[in-house]
């Protein structure tokens, strides 16, 4: 993990998304899919916290060697400021942060389920999987067309891709989880990777648990620091041996988790107080397929 003052090489618009490419060789060198970057905000603003974005692209060779790309939708103060950043400006960047997606050793057919900006990290993963001779199929979704992340690149990176939007403005009408059973059939998927909104990941997790499909998901949680010191970003994860669970830091112990071990109901609970351990006890989960 490094902290650098990184120059902005270029900025682009991709539908609803903004893309920033920065020069940060020390980070690009180490970056792997699922990891993220932490961007510092300017000093004199009334908002303080760093903002966090998945690494979409890390170039190690060629003309772009040493550069990193991340993408975001301008929403609040921080992303609005970032959206106005110009080439040749500098950013305070920490990365690569967090645990990356693990690659399957034996299994080959990988299904990547991406919702919204979740595609940013999964496209990066697709490249790495293909470089390892894995078959990559994709489900890419969003609420509407302009929020579907780089559909063309999605097609290029996958054997088959199904695009879904909630309003039907592009591809099938529906959500990525609706499209899941079908895709798994069609592609003979053996491993599932997913990134997107937590409720969707919960549904993907339930499906994979039921089908006994090994899976990994990249989660997002509010972060205070992004580098593991404040314990703001925790997700309840069952211990391997089922003796209980721990609140693990999405930034340091995640953001990639085995969905079978995430206690979704507890994490996504509306209640401000903790839910008691379910009567059936906590799941015992074998680790990621060797």
């Amino acid at each position: 993990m490094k902290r650098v003052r990184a120059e902005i090489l270029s900025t682009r618009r991709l539908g609803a998304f903004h893309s920033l490419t920065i020069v940060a060789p020390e980070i690009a060198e180490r970056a792997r899919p699922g990891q993220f970057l932490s961007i510092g905000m300017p000093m004199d603003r009334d908002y303080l916290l760093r903002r966090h974005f998945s690494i979409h692209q890390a170039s190690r060779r060629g003309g772009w060697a040493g550069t990193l790309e991340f993408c975001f939708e301008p929403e609040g103060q921080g992303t609005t400021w970032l959206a106005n950043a110009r080439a040749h400006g500098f950013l305070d960047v920490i990365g690569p942060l967090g645990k990356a997606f693990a690659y399957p050793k034996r299994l080959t057919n990988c299904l990547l389920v991406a919702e919204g900006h979740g595609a940013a990290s999964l496209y990066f993963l697709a490249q790495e999987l293909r470089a390892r001779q894995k078959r990559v199929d994709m489900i890419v979704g969003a609420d509407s067309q302009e929020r579907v992340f780089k559909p063309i690149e999605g097609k290029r990176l996958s054997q088959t891709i199904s695009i879904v939007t909630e309003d039907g403005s592009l591809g099938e009408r529906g959500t990525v989880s609706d499209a899941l059973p079908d895709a798994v059939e069609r592609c003979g998927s053996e491993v599932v990777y997913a990134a997107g909104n937590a409720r969707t990941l919960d549904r993907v997790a339930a499906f994979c648990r039921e089908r006994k499909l090994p899976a990994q998901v990249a989660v997002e949680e509010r972060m205070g620091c992004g580098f593991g010191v404040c314990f703001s970003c925790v997700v309840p994860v069952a211990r391997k041996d089922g003796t209980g669970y721990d609140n693990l830091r999405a930034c340091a112990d995640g953001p990639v988790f085995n969905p079978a071990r995430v206690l979704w109901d507890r994490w996504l609970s509306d209640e401000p107080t903790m839910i008691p351990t379910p009567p059936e006890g906590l799941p015992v989960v074998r680790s990621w397929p060797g």
Partner: protein
Amino acid sequence: MAGVRRSLTVELPGLTLPTPVMIASGCAGTGREIGAFVDTRKLGGIVSRSITLLPRKGTPTPRIAESPSGVVWSTGLQNPGIEAFLVDEFPRLIRTGAPVIVSIAGGTLEEFVRLTSLLQGRAGVSAIETHLSEPDEELDLESLASRADRAAEIVGAVARMSMVPVFAKLPAFVGDLVGVARACVRAGATGLTLVDAVPALGVRAERFRAELGSVTGRLSGPAIRPIALRAVHEVSRAIPDVPILGCGGVQRGEDAVEMLLAGARAVQVGTAALVDPAAPVEVAAGVAAFLKRKGLTSPADLLGRLRVPSNEALLG
């Protein structure tokens, strides 16, 4: 200033700090993380997150949200419990080479006593900080610090058992801050950490929701600096010789200088260390630069040297 020997070292009773700038409790991690960003031997000290007798899972997320020039947060003091802490986290904190102050928390006198006994005589514990903002489970008070006699009882018990300095960390607002502070010192506290984060609530209008999973939380960051400064000033004037660790909104060297002028011997950096992990070291560098510019030789030269203003000075 040729020939002047300038040093950032701070001498406290039973405790020497390499610089006047520590990392505040809950903002220093587990000893694994911070070394990636700074030379930890340049830290004045590291205060551990508050450790309780039994493990705590903490509050549900979201645990942090932004507010103007501050953050509202609540971790529910998530920590592995003192035993696991001593096995794992504590040794790593010591290996950073910075003085380690262990922050202990609980809701009953017994918890504090047992926590202290487990720290007693343990190599590497430079000091103990008592976190007193938790609800009092025995007397059913809003916090252990809300009554002077109760705060004194807790801090006194810890101080009597401890062979290292004990700092009582107090909230900025308790019925009578000076009274509680004095009671803690009389009971044996070596010094005080002023202040803990301030009770607060973040609301997200758009969603009709509280920002935090625990609904209410605490406010920290630059927003509360004037609140912390007032607490340090008031207590240091009422109890002149008590060592105070100023905490609250310190982000730049100048902020730390303000704390020292107001009456603190050293400062703690919390929120700013989340925003910029190098902040605690850069703040110390800023203090050094200030001392140099003013021709002073040590942070002690700033202690309580607050002068009243003159319009001319402010307008000229």
